[in-house]
């Protein structure tokens, strides 16, 4: 119990010096909870239409109104994180794992001589080519060629984002591999692969972790974009992008609610993930972390009784 209390106290202190971090975590938590608890909260089925109740404006009966076929928008909006977050998180994790693993190998073998150096050079040029593609057209083409399904959207997201992690990890590993402890590990008889996995990768993870959360936000946007043009998640499945697309024609004629509410939910969720990414960045960056710790110490000093006189004395 006391542990929970002290944790809450730390959270409260962080909330006072960096309120936006807490906002980010709260948004992400709410989105996850909405997805998990949707069957309990949602007043209507997310995929069943009531043809007599089409395009009803927001009211107490239908909080966010109903769409052109008569589905309840509130229910669909809170069901949507199930599919959107799953696709985005799984796709991002896949790209992070594959991209950083290959990136670590490429970074480790980027100097010296032999076949491996050539292989790592070839991988980097391949990444150049992939990154020269227009992202969106590439993603649509991938989904179209693999057959449209949720799995292929996940794969497309993983594929499009992998070069980012590849480059991040490569740059990190190239600087870390010159460290003495890497040399020591090799001298101690560990194989290249074990040295990479046990001693290099854990020390190179910081930027990758910070990127992860920001990338989940992008992945949600990409999923929604794909669904918006009909190349992602198909219609009755509750998904923010396809909901916005369904309301497209209605917006022009004046019924704003079918598109505006799912779009707001989408934007707030992505915003939350980028705030979480920002907080991880601060923890991973020594300079910013020091600033945070300094601010935290000041807050806890002020909170303690008699702190005002103490801090007045210490500042000349």
């Amino acid at each position, binding site marked *: 119990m006391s542990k929970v209390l002290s944790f809450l106290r730390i959270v409260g202190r962080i909330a006072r010096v960096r309120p936006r971090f807490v906002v980010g975590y709260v948004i992400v938590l709410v989105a996850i909870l909405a997805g998990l608890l949707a069957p309990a909260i949602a007043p209507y089925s997310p995929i069943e239409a009531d043809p007599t109740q089409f395009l009803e404006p927001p009211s107490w009966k239908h909080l966010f109104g109903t769409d052109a076929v008569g589905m309840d928008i509130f229910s669909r909006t809170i069901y949507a994180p199930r599919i959107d977050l799953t696709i985005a998180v799984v796709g991002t994790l896949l790209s992070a794992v594959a991209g950083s693993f290959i990136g670590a190998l490429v970074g480790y073998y980027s100097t010296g001589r032999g076949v491996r150096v050539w292989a790592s050079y070839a991988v980097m040029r391949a990444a150049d080519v992939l990154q020269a*593609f*227009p992202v*969106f057209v*590439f993603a649509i083409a991938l989904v179209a060629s693999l057959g449209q399904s949720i799995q292929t959207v996940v794969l497309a997201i993983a594929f499009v984002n992998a070069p980012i992690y590849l480059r991040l990890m490569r740059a990190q590993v190239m600087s870390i591999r010159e460290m003495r402890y890497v040399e020591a590990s090799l001298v101690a008889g560990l194989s290249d692969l074990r040295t990479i996995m046990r001693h290099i990768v854990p020390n190179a993870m910081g930027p990758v972790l910070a990127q992860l959360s920001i990338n989940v936000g992008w992945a949600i946007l990409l999923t929604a974009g794909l669904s918006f043009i009909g190349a992602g998640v198909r219609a009755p499945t509750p998904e923010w992008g396809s909901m916005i697309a369904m309301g497209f024609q209605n*917006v022009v004629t004046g019924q704003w609610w079918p598109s505006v509410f799912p779009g707001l939910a989408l934007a707030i969720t992505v915003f939350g993930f980028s705030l979480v990414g920002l907080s991880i960045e601060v923890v991973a960056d020594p300079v910013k972390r020091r600033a945070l710790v300094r601010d935290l110490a000041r807050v806890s000093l002020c909170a303690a009784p008699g702190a005002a006189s103490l801090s007045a004395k210490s500042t000349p």
Partner: protein
Amino acid sequence: MTILPYIGRRLLFIAPQLLGIVLVSFFLVKSIPGDPAVLMLGPTATPEAIASLRSKLGLDHSLPVQFWIYLKDLAHGDLGTSWQTTRPVLEDLVQRFPATLELVTLGLLVAVLIGVPLGLASAFREKGIIARIADFYGLGAGALPDFWLALVLIFVFYTLLQWAPAPLGRIDLAVIPPPPVTGMLTIDSLLAADWDAFRSAAAHLVLPVLTLGLVNAGPILKMTQSTMEKMLQSDFSRYEVLCGIPHRLVVRHALRNALPSVVTIISVLYGFLIGGAVLVEIVFSWGGAGQYAVQGVLNSDLYPVLGFVLFSAIFSLFVYLMVDLIYLAIDPRIGH
């Protein structure tokens, strides 16, 4: 002068990269299920008709042979024919690419006009109200889906206020478009001194340009802000402050040193937006190159996709080359 050999070296590297891009996109689009011959002739076609069309389109060859034929045509400036528009892809793209370019260039300009001043203002007063707005904007702009923002703007400025024209293309149907010179309607109508056409084209540009500008100002703002903060805290700025040099000059020198990073982020956005503005194009029925490519993917129309990918890759590589030349001009350290 070492600039010409430098450009030559860069162009040498571009060729294999373009080949790689064409190779990947060719096999990727070819692997999309759906036979163009069947799609062109419709469901009632006889097998003989389909077979003869397949051989006419060269679809009966093996994939590597088809790729070789495509490369040979490419060398003659033939980008193939789109079966949807039944026109040569090169003609289609020459018509549509300027539409996208006009939209994206103006959108990016708006983004720079929003992003750079806000970034600068927030870098000076880190605790002020402008800095707070800028912080929030920098984070929030990246979270907005551009196609959704476009819809909201349409709802407010077209449906409610009736200020903007209907989101249906680049110019009013009743207005005769100016004779094409550059393909960009605003410039063409100015060249033809056709004020009605110019007014209509400019009015149609406002909402999509605003959408792209508002969304893409975020990254420019963040980059300006963080680089300027770094520059103002660096040794040369502190030294200037210690020497009593006026604040205005200190800022100007810091800005001069922050410029390369700002130019970089702008160029990256420019390359990205050629393909990344697709959704905004679709919302406004813009008929640009991105929309053309997406239609191609969705209808297994191979050549428009390849043509678009090629065009946009060449465009981004050109932008990067220009940026490197700009670096030479604005950063004396690189010249040596």
